[in-house]
């Protein structure tokens, strides 16, 4: 099967900065794909390489089997939802949405009808006559989405699409984007630095760091079986355990990771486990996050709210299921 987007050893260097460094990537048609990473990790540059705003320094990119190097953005069947939405302030909402069809020479009646339909799709019917300046942030986001979708792209790129929205709106849009993607069957590629967003929305996630992909996999893979310390720490703030510590519990001298929710807390008197001291508690509503100090090793545990907790500074014993201790590939 042809990949929707395929990267072969793609690099993009800006002077001495390797923004994207020998990246291999295959995105399946119809997939909801997330590029996750801290700022400056190269994920946005990857998106811009697909859109055509950047050209690779080396390597090759193909979009549905066609070579993409040297093809300008306006000849690619790919559309982008920009982080700042980039709506045209001098056009009303309907003309904004119809813009792509207008420059392709579609007749006025036809393109306005298509734009109306796209606006209904993002649940903004009848907003066509307004100016972008009269809309709220969430509405602008939807207009930007409609403006991209009206061109029926094969791939839709979303650059931090929910970054500027408040929490409640963001959660609504997450669900909406996901159901929209299912209904349309278009390949969605979205860039985010929010691991929760990536895990909840995407079919597969690529974790970026320093211009390289650290790991690609399903959200469960990434969360439960991180391959490197970086992934374990960045996705879900796992406890990263040094090889010496891991050897005591698994017999292997390798880096390990342990999810904070896998750790159970017991009274110090109660026998075996890891001896530790409770340093701080952090109430999060449904759960409580505990900061622990196990002989100099900083650990975090998450326990359900209402669990009876020892006082801060008290000695405790930590236990965990051996299966939950994940051994990472990274060499010790």
């Amino acid at each position, binding site marked *: 099967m042809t990949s929707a987007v395929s990267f072969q050893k793609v690099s993009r260097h800006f002077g001495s900065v390797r923004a994207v460094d020998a990246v291999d990537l295959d995105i399946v048609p119809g997939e909801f794909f997330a590029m996750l990473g801290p700022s400056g990790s190269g994920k946005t540059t990857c998106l811009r390489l697909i*859109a*055509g*705003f950047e050209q690779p320094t080396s390597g090759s990119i193909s979009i549905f089997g066609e070579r993409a190097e040297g093809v*300008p*953005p*306006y000849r690619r069947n*790919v*559309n*982008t939802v*920009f*982080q*700042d939405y*980039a*709506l*045209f*302030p*001098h056009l009303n909402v309907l003309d904004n949405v119809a*813009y*792509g069809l*207008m*420059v*392709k020479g579609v007749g006025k009646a036809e393109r306005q009808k298509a734009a109306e339909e796209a606006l209904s799709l993002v649940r903004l019917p009848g907003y066509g006559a307004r100016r972008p300046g009269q809309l709220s942030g969430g509405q602008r986001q939807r207009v930007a989405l409609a*403006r*991209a979708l009206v*061109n029926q792209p094969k791939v839709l790129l979303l650059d931090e699409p929910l970054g500027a929205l408040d929490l409640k709106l963001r959660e609504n849009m997450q669900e909406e984007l996901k159901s929209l993607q299912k209904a349309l069957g278009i390949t969605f590629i979205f860039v985010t630095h929010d691991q929760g967003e990536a895990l909840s929305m995407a079919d597969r996630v690529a974790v970026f760091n320093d211009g390289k992909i650290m790991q690609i996999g399903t959200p469960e893979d990434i969360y439960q079986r991180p391959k490197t310390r970086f992934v374990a720490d960045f996705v879900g703030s796992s406890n990263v355990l040094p090889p010496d510590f891991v050897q005591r519990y698994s017999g292997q001298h390798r880096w390990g990771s342990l999810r904070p929710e896998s750790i159970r807390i017991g009274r110090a008197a109660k026998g075996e486990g890891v001896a530790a001291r409770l340093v701080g508690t952090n109430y999060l509503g449904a759960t409580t996050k505990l900061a622990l100090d196990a002989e100099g090793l900083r650990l975090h545990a998450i326990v359900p709210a209402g669990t009876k907790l020892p006082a801060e500074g008290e000695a405790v014993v930590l236990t965990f299921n051996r299966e939950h201790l994940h051994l990472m590939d990274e060499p010790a």
Partner: protein
Amino acid sequence: MRSDGSQSAPLGLKIAAACGLLFLHLPILLIFVYAFTTEEKSFVWPPPGLTTQWFAVTWNRPDVWQALSLSVRVAAISTAIALVLGTLCAAAVSRTKFFGRETISLLVILPIALPGIITGIALRSAFSLADIPFSFWTIVLGHATFCVVVVYNNAVARFRRSSGSMIEASMDLGADGFQTFRYVVLPNIATALLAGGMLAFALSFDEVIVTTFTAGQQQTVPIWMLEELIRPRQRPVTNVVAMVVVLVTLLPILLAYYLTRDGDQIAGSGK
């Protein structure tokens, strides 16, 4: 001290403000009044009588028409040159980063910061060094030096305010470079260009110093006026022309002000 609208300013301050405004604008009114006087050799107050005959006299003077026509043509062509060059330069400086960008930005603005007399002398010696005879085009060149600045300043301010990703969005949606310029860039900078263009036109229209150095025998309106003031006869003709100049230059500046008052300043209007 508080300045809420309800509080009235002290009487002394009001009088001082009124005097200031009168001092600024009364002389302009006097010019208008003398356009109607019956005394043609000198300006006496009060005017011995009022007449509208000077309008007819002005209308029939070919030298007035020549000067006006030259001024309008010079202003129009300098403004056209400035619109093209100023916009291109503003786009380059605000859209891309390159070596020497700040220097270029400064060099473009310099002609308006330099005294006109320096620009004038510099151009005159350059023309004579290169053996270029004074003509209509040497005046246009002289005026274009400061017209470009006005357009550039207005365009740069607008480019900075508009989102850079708009151009990328347009390309992304299938528009090539020309379509992007036509449908996205131009509509967004149009009012800034109109304002800059009108200001440039007004500046060129009443320019004296640079013109003196770059014109040959030709007379633009301001130069014609200076000459006219020395002559003893038909003095009110100058006043009639002055009234026309006030209208021709004031209206565009007012329009430019209203077009750009939302946030933008009419950059470079201090010349």
